[in-house]
């Protein structure tokens, strides 16, 4: 394996800018690693040939004043890429080739990057272990038969295994932060509306948000800077001035107030995670921040409310898959209705069906007030909790997940225990606020654990700065035996 692929995105970008390496060399090194992806199964589509061509084109006429000059990047297969298959991890879209490009990937390409491949994910981003993908399980590079988390599991796995210098995921209830935590990488879910949703296969539109996944906080700032920005094509996109997150990155956090919510100390949480959290507090205190105890009283109701709102929105978003204009169509059925029913039965996997049915039920006649309206009211209470807390503190510190990565199959047959994985990440999506997960230590099995920082709306810079300060003091190291290459 080339040492080049171990370098951070920022380092690679700087080497290219200084003309010390060529984009072709970088691209070639990552392709070499990708060729050994078979056991990890992190890629659904490899774009090695077209990436090499783009790298050579870049080297012939390098444009060095961009943020991501000549950088190959693989992305979650939920982002539509023009002329390249976009599957959302589903049989339904197995052969779907969009003729347009998502705004977010387009933003990356405008900054000089190009597509290296499409990464595996849970089907329609519904899952917390990457076990619902039609294209098979993804393995965590930290250990064989271990899940990478989900739904951006392929993204996290490819990033941690040095198959891409950085990547992007989407986060509806934790799908960036939980896999980042499980693989020892950095993942950020931006404020709702900061990154355009246009051209992303929709799951739950009031919660979905794209974000960067990177090796370190500096890279995360760089990627966010490239991704973020107003988009007329997304009616929920926030119209504000672009920020220079990477240039303004600092570890000076003296005087900032960090809130510790007592409700995140849940029953049965492993001691190691408690210890990790304590250590996080100490580190931020040593950096000059002030630790403040706070309360987010409605935390325990976030997950049940999420399992009304998200499936409800999913059931209406996924109504478009009817086998008529694009995607899979069943060959069975004697009339139009039977064709619809068989197409959706054969095209969707079990978890997607489960969520469509939950959503259909909570929106069906006579149940709307009891479920959907109730959940929206609880969503207001969750948001109020955060609003109150942010009157007292700048940022909130919590663990990212209630456990480290688990074995494949361990939670597959019990939906509730799978859903509980997102207990610390879901409240953030309901409130539409930003949060970042950074690797902060290991458990007794040497599996990585993450800490989450939650911020006020559009306060990404402060989140990145605190994460940057913490990262320096934590000095997280991970060595992989690269079992999948053997």
């Amino acid at each position: 394996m080339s040492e080049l692929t171990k370098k951070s995105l920022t380092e690679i970008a700087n080497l290219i800018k200084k003309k010390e390496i060529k984009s072709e060399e970088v691209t070639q090194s990552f392709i070499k690693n990708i060729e050994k992806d078979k056991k990890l199964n992190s890629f659904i589509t490899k774009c090695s040939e077209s990436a090499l061509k783009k790298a050579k084109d870049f080297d012939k006429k390098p444009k060095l004043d961009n943020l991501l000059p000549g950088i190959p990047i693989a992305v979650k297969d939920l982002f539509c890429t023009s002329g390249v298959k976009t599957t959302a991890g589903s049989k339904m879209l197995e052969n779907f080739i969009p003729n347009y490009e998502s705004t977010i990937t387009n933003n990356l390409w405008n900054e000089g990057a190009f597509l290296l491949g499409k990464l595996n994910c849970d089907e329609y981003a519904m899952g917390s272990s990457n076990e619902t993908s039609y294209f098979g399980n993804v393995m965590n590079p930290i250990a064989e038969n271990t899940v990478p988390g989900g739904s951006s599991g392929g993204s996290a796995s490819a990033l941690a295994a040095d198959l891409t210098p950085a990547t992007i995921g989407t986060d509806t209830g934790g799908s960036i932060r939980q896999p980042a935590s499980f693989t020892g990488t950095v993942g950020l879910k931006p404020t709702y509306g900061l990154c355009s949703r246009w051209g992303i296969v929709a799951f739950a539109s009031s919660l979905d948000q794209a974000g960067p996944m990177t090796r370190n906080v500096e890279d995360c700032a760089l990627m966010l800077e490239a991704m973020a920005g107003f988009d007329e094509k997304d009616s929920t996109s926030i119209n504000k001035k672009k920020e220079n997150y990477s240039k303004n990155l600092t570890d000076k956090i003296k005087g900032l107030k960090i809130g510790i919510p007592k409700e995140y100390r849940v029953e049965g949480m492993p001691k190691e995670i408690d210890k990790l959290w304590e250590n996080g507090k100490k580190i931020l205190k040593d950096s000059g921040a002030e630790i403040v105890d706070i309360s987010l009283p409605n935390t325990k109701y976030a997950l049940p409310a999420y399992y009304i709102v998200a499936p409800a929105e999913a059931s209406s978003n996924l109504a478009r898959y009817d086998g008529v204009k694009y995607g899979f169509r069943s060959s069975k059925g004697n009339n139009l209705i039977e064709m619809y029913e068989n197409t959706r039965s054969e095209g969707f996997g079990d978890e997607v069906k489960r969520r469509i049915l939950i959503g259909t039920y909570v929106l069906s006649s006579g149940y709307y007030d009891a479920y959907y309206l109730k959940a929206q009211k609880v969503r207001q209470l969750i948001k109020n909790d955060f609003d109150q807390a942010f009157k007292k503190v700048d940022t909130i510190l919590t663990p990212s997940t209630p456990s480290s990565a688990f074995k494949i199959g361990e939670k597959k047959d019990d939906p509730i225990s799978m859903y509980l994985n997102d207990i610390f990440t879901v409240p953030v999506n309901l409130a539409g606020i930003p949060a970042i997960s950074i690797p902060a230590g290991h458990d007794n099995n040497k599996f990585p654990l993450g800490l989450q920082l939650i911020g006020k709306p559009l306060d990404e810079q402060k989140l990145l700065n605190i994460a940057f300060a913490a990262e320096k003091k934590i000095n997280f190291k991970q060595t992989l035996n690269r079992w999948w290459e053997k």
Partner: protein
Amino acid sequence: MSIDKDKIKHISKLARISLDAKKTDTLAKDLSSIFKFIEQLNELNTDKTEPLSSILNEPLRSRGDVVNDGKIREKILENSPQKNEEFFVVPKVIE
């Protein structure tokens, strides 16, 4: 609330997803436990709380109704499971 097989049959019809007997059984079991979990929300009094449908403070923008791409019929049809010249083909709907 427990969700029985008849309820599953009803919502799967609404959602246009055909299910065999075995799947119907499993889903009735799964959804019953999920709704038991969801119904924790009933502990909360929300009589005086306004529902939150969007976290954005401003109303949704609309853009002008203008054609900005167009002339992509062939490209669109390329993804269709069945087509005939410039039309999508579906099973017969009129007898």
